[in-house]
């Protein structure tokens, strides 16, 4: 599972920064069928967590209503240099993670 995380490379302490995430995932709703009629089992990313230098800063619980290849964005406050790490798990138990570094000076 591939994901992209975008945030500013540098920020000043206390600055509000935008974090953007996209993840390649089919987000199967459980309502679709194969050509031969078999139902396609529901499989969505059910939870996603963002941690800033290890501390949780954002959490999303998701369901069938989210389109494939989801896009999320949230804001947080730049505190110290390090990294923001995103990790998630889907209904099939597949886990993924992606991180982006940030340098806080000013």
């Amino acid at each position, binding site marked *: 599972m*591939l994901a992209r995380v*975008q945030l500013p490379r540098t920020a000043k302490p206390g600055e509000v920064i935008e974090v*953007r995430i*996209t993840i390649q995932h089919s987000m199967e709703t459980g309502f679709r069928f194969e050509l031969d009629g078999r139902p396609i089992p529901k499989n969505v990313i059910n939870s996603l967590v963002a941690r800033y230098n290890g501390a949780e800063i954002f959490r999303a619980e998701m369901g069938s209503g989210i389109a494939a290849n989801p896009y999320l964005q949230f804001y947080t406050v730049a505190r110290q240099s390090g990294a923001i790490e995103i990790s998630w798990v889907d209904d099939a138990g597949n886990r993924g993670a992606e991180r982006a570094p940030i340098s806080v000076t000013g």
Partner: protein
Amino acid sequence: MKSGIEFVSDDLRKLQADDFANPGMLWVARGEKIWGEAAGNGGKSCAACHGVAAKSMQGVAARYPRVDPGAARLVNLEGRINLCRDRKQQAQPLGPESDELLALTAYVAHQSRGVPVSVTLDMQNRKDFERGRELYNRRIGQMNLACTHCHDRSWGKKLAAETVSQGHGNAFPAYRLEWQSVGSLQRRIRACFYGLRAEMPPYGAQELLDLELYLAWRAGGLPVETPGVRR
């Protein structure tokens, strides 16, 4: 001449223009990874021979499909990438519409974003071109319509929830909301065959390559948009 992007909603236009939110960029990012990975018995990556794609692949997609000198037949960009898989990497060719092939094709085509489409017609591709043009103008399927009926005579009109465009291929591989994925130009053309209730040629069929060539010729001058975003 208008690209298909001019016929989509504002939301989709914004999505395509946003290099982060554009879901097609996930495939481009995946292609960039594969570009650097060794594969096959040759043990070489694309990068081992072609170096930095931004330089070596710039403008390449705008010239496809073309008659490949080595293969002596018309190939599209996917076909050319698979020639390298086969002959230069001694690796299994990638399946049509596989995520890997879409990712590499989107990545290579993305290096031509903004470059005007320009295929040249010559003795070698003349026959392919003429067959493509003939098929484009031939009535097919139970709907008994030709490509030209919609994409030349009816563009701008509504068809169900969609506005018919001029049917150019310059955004492909493109992300379609309906597919929830990136797909090739052949997949898009096959969808039009399906809509006309005509028998869909299999991926890689000569008819589809001929049509791709004809479409590229009539789109001459439009900028490559890959990865486009469509409904």
